[in-house]
């Protein structure tokens, strides 16, 4: 393995990691969102749109986060206000995002021809070939750095901080948490918005850090891989990071050696098979919060 491979693996893992960390926080608060794919897609599209129009990838990133948060606000209304089934609502979110981005893409960008958005530059191109830190840091963009920094931060927040304890209590036993003075719905609302911001940023990474262009449904199942990473990472921040890097490496292997020994389609189904296996293994428990997926009714 050379430096270029490390650089590519980390780059492929970044959007997965951002989305997975958001989904992790949300799931630890007891809400599951299979619409993370849609959140990423809307982040990718609106991030691209804003970056193209403004010429600034920073504004693009902000727009991506905003779009993700907006979509998750809709999700929040449905599953928190109306206490509807989270899985079905998440699926509807995917449709909604596909529909909005698809129709808007044809209406807004098709007439402009093939457009390119502004993109994030690597942190320091001159030091890109430095040993270890080159591919891991300098060759990456600010978004990858953000994702990497978020891993310890979210780990600390979830496992060591008082707020994180409250959030976990909301995920494990919302009634008891409410009795001890935690606002369950408020906490879940915050988690929803955080998941939207991170998922949107993860999606935006695809367009304003990787390709500079947008294609319909360009997230191509990455949201489901992020969902898989949370389960495979046993609902911990470090576990998520490890799972995302692993998936990044397997996708890199698929793209780097096309048509040789690794059949593309079989690599593509690897994350999903592993997720099923991870869900089946019960080492004490699989780490999922006890109240995951159950609406909270006061």
């Amino acid at each position, binding site marked *: 393995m050379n430096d270029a491979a490390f650089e590519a693996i980390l780059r492929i893992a970044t959007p997965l990691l951002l989305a997975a960390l958001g989904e992790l926080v949300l799931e630890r608060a007891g809400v*599951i969102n*299979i619409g993370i794919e849609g959140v990423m897609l809307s982040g990718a599209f609106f991030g691209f749109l804003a970056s193209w129009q403004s010429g600034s990838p920073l504004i693009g990133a902000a727009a991506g986060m905003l779009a993700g948060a907006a979509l998750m606000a*809709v999700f929040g209304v*449905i599953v928190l206000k*109306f*206490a*509807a*089934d989270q*899985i*079905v*609502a998440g*699926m*509807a*979110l*995917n*449709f*909604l*995002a*596909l*529909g*909005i*981005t*698809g*129709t*808007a*893409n*044809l*209406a807004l960008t098709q007439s402009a021809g093939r457009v390119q958005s502004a993109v994030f530059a690597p942190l320091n191109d001159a030091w890109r070939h430095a040993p270890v830190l080159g591919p891991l840091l300098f060759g990456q963009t600010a978004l990858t750095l953000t994702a990497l920094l978020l891993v310890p931060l979210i780990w600390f927040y979830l496992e060591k901080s008082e707020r994180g304890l409250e959030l976990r209590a909301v995920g494990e036993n919302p009634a008891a948490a409410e009795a001890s003075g935690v606002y369950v719905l408020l906490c879940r609302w915050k988690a929803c918005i955080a998941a939207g911001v991170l998922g949107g940023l993860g999606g935006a990474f695809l367009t304003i850090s990787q390709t500079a262009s947008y294609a*319909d449904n360009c997230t191509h*199942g990455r949201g*489901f891989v992020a*969902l*898989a990473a949370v*389960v495979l990472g046993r609902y911990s921040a470090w576990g998520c990071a490890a799972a995302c890097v692993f998936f990044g490496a397997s996708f890199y292997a698929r793209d780097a050696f096309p048509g040789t020994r690794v*059949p593309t*389609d*079989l690599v*593509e*189904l690897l994350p*999903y*098979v592993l*997720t*099923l296996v991870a*869900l*089946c293994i*019960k080492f004490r428990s699989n780490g999922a919060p006890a109240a995951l*997926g*159950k*609406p909270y*009714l006061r």
Partner: protein
Amino acid sequence: MNSEHRAPDSTTEPFGEYLWPAAMLLGTLLLLALVVRLCGQNPASALSALWNGAFGSIGALATTAARASVLVLYALGVLISFRAGVLNIGAEGQSRVGAALACTVAFSALQPAFAKVPWLGIPLLLLCGAFAGATWSLIAGILRWWRGVPEVIATLMLNLIGLSFVRWLVSSPDLLRDVSSFPRSPLLADALQLPGWGITEFHSGVFLSLPVLIVVQLWLFKMPGGFFLRATGLNPPAARANGIPVVRVQLLAFAWSGALAGFAGALALLARGRLDQDPTYPDFGYMAIAVALVAGLRPLAVLPAAILFAALDAGAKAMQATAGVSYWIVYLVQGVVILAVLVRGVAVFRARSGKVSAAAEAAA
């Protein structure tokens, strides 16, 4: 019909049962017009393009009917599993695996037998499809029962696995690939293809959905098995307390819903004549969830709902071609419709989350 009206999940408000579909239809039309307007196009011409694409000619009608028949089969599967309180959203993968097994058998050592006995092939392949779909679905069912794996995640993952797996099958020359072309299977033998009708998607198996629909309706509302299924979905603890084998009912629901999806997949294969890299009707497995929910999980209502969504699907493709509004608008409508149904509330989902209504308890 009567027992259907007395179903515990019917609305309690007067006229609600008739107002609701009308409101959904009107809302959908308004939404379409609004989105078309936002895209800078003329709603009237776009909507008329949509209408023409769906119902405007005999050919359009035939295509809409063919798609509706797929949706009916998928949606009945969704309905059976949802009614049992298990959310099998895996029609997409189950139909693919069904088509793949049917295709494998079609090119297996049985080939001479198919040539000799012409009536044997098509029913056998359809059965193979149903069997494979049921097996694929039962994986999720068994994982749920044995390991407590949430069936929605399992079926979602099995969808993605099934799609990639079949893509691998048809792109590997040693397996199902037609080596002389891009990745897809060779054409099935003539005796194994359902006769089509010109360039439309219509085929002789389209109306097979109707008897299936009637059987599901009668079984669900007139047979003990259907009663057990509904009771299980509305209140599992109460069903168990009354001696209903809840686990067996739910596993059977997985099997039957998967069988319907696999059957539909095999049917599409026989109509198309070969197995392609991607499903003939991509994402219809998910669209069927919207169909089943809009139909209020009632078999008879599935038919109009499926026709509507099939029309939307066929019409939107025409609308993209002529009026410059993207086909993706179909997904937008699907999303909004499902969210609207969720906000209104679905009895089975209430039971799943521990909110069991008094009506449901009385029914079980």
